[in-house]
């Protein structure tokens, strides 16, 4: 039941007002209340993008658990004091699981978790861990590696571009993997990046895309945009484009190269199960092809079939662990060596990645 | 007995508790120039608005050519044959005369131009149809307004204080026009409070006081004193005769001041020279728009001159051209501007707060903080001593009638005991009782040794209170004339620029 207002909800509010918020949890338990799960995201849910993917994941939880869970979805919550207050409020309202859908919620969400030991928190993209606090992230770099292979195959200019939100490790590593994948097909490929420093500013994102297209890039990686701003511009101008999280195929019916979709359902289902069984334990959840969280899809028919075959093989190897994206030798943009022949970079190197591989032409902002 | 053109019986109109018109009876015959005479606030304007359909009466009957009518808009009134020229013109300055007229009167431009010329010749209303309105004098603009009314062939023409904006010579010309109109069968309702004019041109006069009719007479049978008594309900207060006195030190001197205002429509001033002593009253005569506003700002300090020209304005023994308004007041200068609302007083503020506007230096502010008790005391004194009719010091200035507000502002400035007092248009729109009181105060200031400078359009007023007058015309100031040596016509000549020459 995703409906957030019903008769019971109203009675709860009234009861809370009358009895004081402190009595609520006890009351809820005594009545065998459903598990309250709240999702807080910084942008509108919309019908595509990051927030949308998180919401879709929760829909699977509802499909599985039905009336035993009660979902509250809150969109457009700015990071900072407002988010802190709202997270406190959802917990005071009796929710026992909190999905904090943005890195910027980290401090506030951690405080809430500390004050409420019976609360389970899933926090997107962060690095803090606590017994009831799990940071989660997708191994997008696995998907972007495959996209890089496809991009190099369809590119005529040998120049690829990426409109990217922030120079944080998650986005940096996905650009590096994209570059490595492209180099697997065309060793001379070049990748240019424009950092727009926003998660949500369609006009600015489109401007950045136009700049890349003007420089001759003919495949664009829309990295961290929650709207089809970049995707639709590329369809208009005839450049291939792909993005993460959820498919935007309908915004670029001819030039959509593919999607590195994220399906959070397996992770959410597992977390809810753990919480209900009382063995939720905070850990770093770094999820990729193997967990079914990363799901490449909507491959464009223009990709040559022999390349497509290689992509499918590579995806299978990445899934079963027989291959790793960041396997040496990897040269850094500045000429240094990131990994020697045969060395595989560990997760700790990937989640703190603050350097570009050779082939990325734009310097990383420091 | 012929049917009268307009007949009014028992017309009444109230605004809240104020009875603006109470049971007014009025009959206007065909071919008559009929005066409506009364003080400010007597109900003249309300009555005209009722006739012209701007407002609806609460009670009463209006008959037009014997038939009862009730016009509910000016358009309906015009259709009946009633035209009106308001005191404040409604012309667009950036359009030509014919363009302005074509906004209201249908017809092709060429045809309109011909008609404007014809009407002008017929009634002495000559004006260039192609001229832009901003280039016209006030008299010419009034002619345009009258022509515009005549284009609709009215049987009755209402003129609201038509002479208040005109120089003497133009008044004579207007009267000639009105007589010609009357001779062609157009009746005229002539609103005024100027008794001599009414005696000169009108054949009937209906006198209003406090919203009611106090008399219907033939003004030619009565002298001005009779009419004034009917108008104000008591004998006209006489001014004390000007006492002989010795002028003291120079309080204000302008030595050939040239000035071009920032406003492109402003009147540049050229070689303006005057000298005013303590203990005398100097009047600046002339029609507004000839540089009065520009001169007033230069003297008040609202417009300042650059440092190197500071000596062109000598005020109370100091070169003051570069001093701002506050610095000049600190020298002992006080000023009553012609605009009372928004300049001399803040409409949204109470009288008490308006006291503070300029009287803050009279001990109403201590260590940066307002002394409310002293402010209240000062205000109460001003209200009492200057007979300001108001519910109390907390009333907003914007709620006062023009005359009462003027009494308040003049009172405030006089209470500052200035050595140089400058009053622009002291009695504009002020009723005759209040005007007399204000003039008496100004003379008293002079007698107490202050220098008093007056700008006024009303020559009679200047002759009453001034020792000397100079005339401002087209930005030039005439030489000084001793009032006891000259006649009104001498001033009039300067007002139309007929007496050039004679160094200032």
């Amino acid at each position, binding site marked *: 039941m995703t*409906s*957030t*207002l019903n008769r019971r*909800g*109203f009675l*709860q*509010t009234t009861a809370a*007002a009358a009895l004081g918020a402190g009595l609520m949890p006890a009351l809820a338990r005594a009545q065998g209340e459903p598990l309250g799960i709240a999702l807080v995201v910084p942008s509108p849910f919309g019908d595509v993008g990051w927030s949308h993917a998180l919401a879709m994941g929760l829909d699977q939880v509802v499909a599985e658990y039905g009336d035993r869970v009660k979902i*509250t979805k*809150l969109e457009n919550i*700015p990071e*900072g*004091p*407002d988010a*802190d*207050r*709202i997270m*406190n*409020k959802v917990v*005071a*309202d009796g929710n026992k699981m909190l999905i904090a859908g943005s890195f*910027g919620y980290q*401090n506030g969400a951690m405080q809430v978790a500390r004050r409420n030991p019976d609360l389970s928190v899933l926090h997107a993209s962060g*690095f803090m861990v606590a017994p009831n606090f799990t940071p989660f992230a997708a191994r997008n770099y696995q998907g972007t590696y495959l996209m890089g292979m496809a991009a190099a195959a369809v590119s005529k200019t040998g120049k690829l571009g990426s409109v990217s939100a*922030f*120079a*944080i*490790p998650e986005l940096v590593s996905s650009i590096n993997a994209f570059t490595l994948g492209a180099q697997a097909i065309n060793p001379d490929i070049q990748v240019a990046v424009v950092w727009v420093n926003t998660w949500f500013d369609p006009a600015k994102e489109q401007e950045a895309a136009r700049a890349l297209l003007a420089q001759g890039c003919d495949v664009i990686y829309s990295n961290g945009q929650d709207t089809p701003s970049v995707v639709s511009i590329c369809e208009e101008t005839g450049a291939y484009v792909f993005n993460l999280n959820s498919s935007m195929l309908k915004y670029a019916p001819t030039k959509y190269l593919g999607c590195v979709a994220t399906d959070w359902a397996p992770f959410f289902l597992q977390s809810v199960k753990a919480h209900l069984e009382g063995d939720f334990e905070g850990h770093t959840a770094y999820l990729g092809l193997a967990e079914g969280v990363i799901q490449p899809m909507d491959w464009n028919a223009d990709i040559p079939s022999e390349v497509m075959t290689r992509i499918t093989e590579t995806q299978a190897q990445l899934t079963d662990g027989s291959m790793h994206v960041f396997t040496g030798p990897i040269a850094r943009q500045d000429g240094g060596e990131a990994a020697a022949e045969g060395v595989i970079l560990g997760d700790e190197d990937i989640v*703190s990645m*603050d350097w570009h591989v050779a082939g990325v032409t734009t310097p990383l*902002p420091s | 007995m012929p049917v009268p053109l307009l007949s009014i019986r028992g017309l009444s109109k109230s605004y809240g508790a104020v009875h603006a018109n109470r049971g007014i009876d009025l009959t206007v015959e065909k071919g008559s120039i009929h005066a409506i005479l009364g003080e400010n606030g007597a109900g003249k304007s309300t009555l005209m608005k009722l006739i012209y359909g701007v407002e*609806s009466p*609460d*009670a009463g*009957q209006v008959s037009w050519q014997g038939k009862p009518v*009730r016009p*509910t808009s000016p358009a309906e009134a015009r259709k009946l044959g009633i035209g009106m020229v308001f005191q404040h013109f409604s012309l667009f300055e950036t359009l030509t005369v014919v363009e302005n007229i074509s906004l209201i009167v249908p017809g092709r431009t060429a045809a309109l131009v011909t008609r404007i010329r014809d009407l002008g010749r017929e009634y002495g209303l000559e004006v260039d149809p192609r001229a832009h309105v901003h280039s016209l004098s006030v008299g010419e603009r009034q002619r345009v307004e009258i022509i515009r009314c005549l284009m609709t062939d009215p049987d009755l023409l209402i003129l609201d204080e038509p002479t208040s904006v005109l120089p003497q010579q133009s008044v004579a010309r207007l009267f000639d026009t009105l007589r010609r109109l009357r001779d062609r069968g157009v009746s005229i309702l002539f609103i005024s409070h100027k008794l001599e004019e009414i005696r000169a041109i009108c054949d009937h006069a209906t006198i209003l006081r406090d919203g009611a009719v106090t008399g219907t007479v033939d003004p030619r049978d009565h002298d001005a004193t009779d009419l004034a008594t009917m108008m104000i309900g008591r004998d006209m207060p006489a001014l004390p005769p000007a006492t002989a006195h010795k002028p003291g030190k120079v309080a204000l001197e302008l030595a050939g001041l040239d000035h071009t205002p920032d406003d492109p429509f402003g009147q540049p001033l050229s070689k303006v020279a005057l000298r005013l002593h303590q203990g005398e009253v100097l009047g600046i005569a002339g029609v507004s728009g000839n540089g009065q506003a520009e001169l007033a700002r230069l003297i008040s*300090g*609202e417009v300042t001159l650059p440092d190197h020209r500071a000596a062109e304005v000598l005020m109370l023994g100091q070169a003051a051209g570069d001093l*701002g*308004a*506050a610095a000049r007041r600190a020298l002992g200068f006080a000023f009553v*501007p012609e*605009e009372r609302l928004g*300049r*001399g*007083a*803040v409409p*949204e503020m109470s009288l008490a*707060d308006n006291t503070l*506007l*300029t009287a*803050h230096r009279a001990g109403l502010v201590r260590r*940066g*903080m307002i002394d409310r008790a002293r402010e209240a005391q000062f205000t109460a004194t001003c209200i009492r001593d200057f007979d300001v009719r108001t*519910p109390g010091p*907390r009333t*907003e200035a*914007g*709620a006062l009638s023009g005359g009462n507000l003027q009494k308040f502002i003049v009172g405030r400035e006089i209470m500052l005991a200035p050595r140089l007092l400058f009053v622009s248009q002291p009695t504009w729109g002020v009723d005759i009782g209040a005007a007399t009181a204000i003039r008496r105060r100004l003379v008293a200031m002079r007698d107490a040794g202050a220098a008093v400078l007056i700008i006024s359009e009303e020559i009679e007023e200047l002759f009453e209170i001034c020792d000397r007058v100079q005339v401002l015309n087209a930005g030039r100031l005439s030489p000084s004339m001793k009032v006891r040596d000259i006649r009104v016509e001498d001033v009039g000549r300067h007002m139309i620029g007929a007496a050039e020459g004679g160094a200032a």
Partner: protein
Amino acid sequence: MNLAGYRLARRDKASRKLAVVAPVVALLLSIALNFALYMAMGKNPVAVFQAMLIEPVISWPAFSEVLLKMTPLLLIAQGLAAGFRAKVINIGAEGQFILGAIFASAVPVWFPQISGLWVWPLMIVLGGIGGMLWAVVPAIWRVRLNASEILVTLMMSLIAAQLLNFLLVGPWKDPMGFNFPQSVIFPLDATLPLILPGTRVNVALAIALIWSVACWVYLQRSFQGYQLMVGGLAPQAAGYAGYSQSRAVWMSLLIGGLAAGLAGASEVAGPVGQLQRSIASGYGYSAIIVAYLGGLHPVGIVFSSLLIAILYIGGDNAMVSAGLPVAAVRVFQGSLLVCYLAAITLVRYRVIREPKGIRA
């Protein structure tokens, strides 16, 4: 104005009684309008209003959040009101707020290990200075070049946002922060002491209340405040009396900048605890509404800031507890404002019925 036989007539003086009644009428009217909206949306209006209007007032945790939210609004609106009275329209409080936050943050960013009881007062003072400095630019442009302060202050806000971006993606980025655009987390002594135990309400609320008293004295009792008001109501009268227009511009912008700077400092040193992009969350713009809603009067602004804070917290509550979409929350906030502006007209004007025709 004449509509169907009714017209507005100016009152002799503003009605004090209606000045108090008008906000209440506006509130009731907007509740009535939105009641219908919630019914149409299939929401329970009683539950929505319970969450939106009642709970923030009667629940202590929620009310403490109201006080926290009210603090920056109160600070900024009091400062802006002084300028608005003088018709110096500073709509760039957002930028001055950001500069206040930046100046205050300089202390913990440059000295992350700093400690001492004097640290947070220093940050508050620096914040005020930062806000004022940002207001100096529009003041100079207005006084020297006669450039509209409305445009310049607004533009300066955009520049301030970019300056904040630059600092956070560049020199002031937390070296341990994985490239996220935010500063280090401030040490304890660089955050404001809490004054209500168990809540996030900090000493900034006290500062805001003291600031309100100061503004009241300045605007209602000082001659300078009076001069500002004259300049706003009747510029010609100010010129006639010889009040300096330049000084009015300077004072207005400096007071507004100071207030916004204080608010920015107390926000980073208060509930946020670090410099981040999200500190620029629109307080500077909301405070404009608060200032006008409070009738530009220091006492009124205390109430209007409280009201707007209640609406914010209540809006959040309505989203969380009553499932109201954010757009519907904004509709309520907007309709309240419109109703208030309509109601406030009656404080200065009264409605008069025009009699029709002649009753002979």
